[in-house]
């Protein structure tokens, strides 16, 4: 029931969600035993910056374009290639169409 079968495997979302729900109830209860209070409005709730001074939100904000630095740096050559490909020039869009058309023609023509 409610199971998705592909011939190579299966996936039953309902059972999983059921198990998740039971586990949620259990651990929500266990979590309730923990201490829930803290001292609001004190130094405690400031972010930890190794003793550096906290600055305004704009300056502390890590911008989206800086995310995944590690990935983009190690894939630098791939990205420069892709950037070169996306010229934004209308003629190039059609050029790609013609190129794909020619390549597929060649393959089908040889075959």
């Amino acid at each position, binding site marked *: 029931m409610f199971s998705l079968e592909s011939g190579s495997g299966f996936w039953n979302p309902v059972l999983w969600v059921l198990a998740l729900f039971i586990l949620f109830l259990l651990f929500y209860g266990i979590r309730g035993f923990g201490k829930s209070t803290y001292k609001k409005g004190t130094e405690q709730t400031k972010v930890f910056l190794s003793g550096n001074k906290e600055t305004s939100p704009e300056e502390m904000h890590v911008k989206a374009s800086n995310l995944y630095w590690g990935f983009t740096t190690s894939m630098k050559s791939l990205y420069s290639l892709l*950037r070169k490909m*996306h010229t*934004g*020039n209308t*003629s190039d869009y*059609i050029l790609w169409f*013609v190129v794909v058309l020619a390549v597929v023609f060649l393959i089908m023509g040889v075959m």
Partner: protein
Amino acid sequence: MIEYIPYIGVVAMILIGLYPILFRRNLIKIVIGISIIESGVNLFLIILGYRDGGVAPIFTSLPPGTTYPEEMVLPVPQALTLTSIVIGVAVLALMLSLVMHIYRKYGTLDVQKIRRLKE
């Protein structure tokens, strides 16, 4: 040989139309290129319906003595071409109005410079 010339013309027109689209920088020339491709395709459709010595495929005004349907040109390609021409006019008008507005905003018609959207 002579009957192949229209087909050669069709291919030539499509290639000639592609040239300004691919290699010319002026937007108007690109629009003209598209227009030429369209004429090429329309020409192709018309050739398909051509019949040597045929008459217009209108039942009510056939010249006396025509054998039906052998002496009529094919009506379907003509209908296709008409539709295609009408669509072509609409596309052409839309493109030209876009070019006009782009010129107002960008101050240029150079396709190399009209690429604020890239990557």
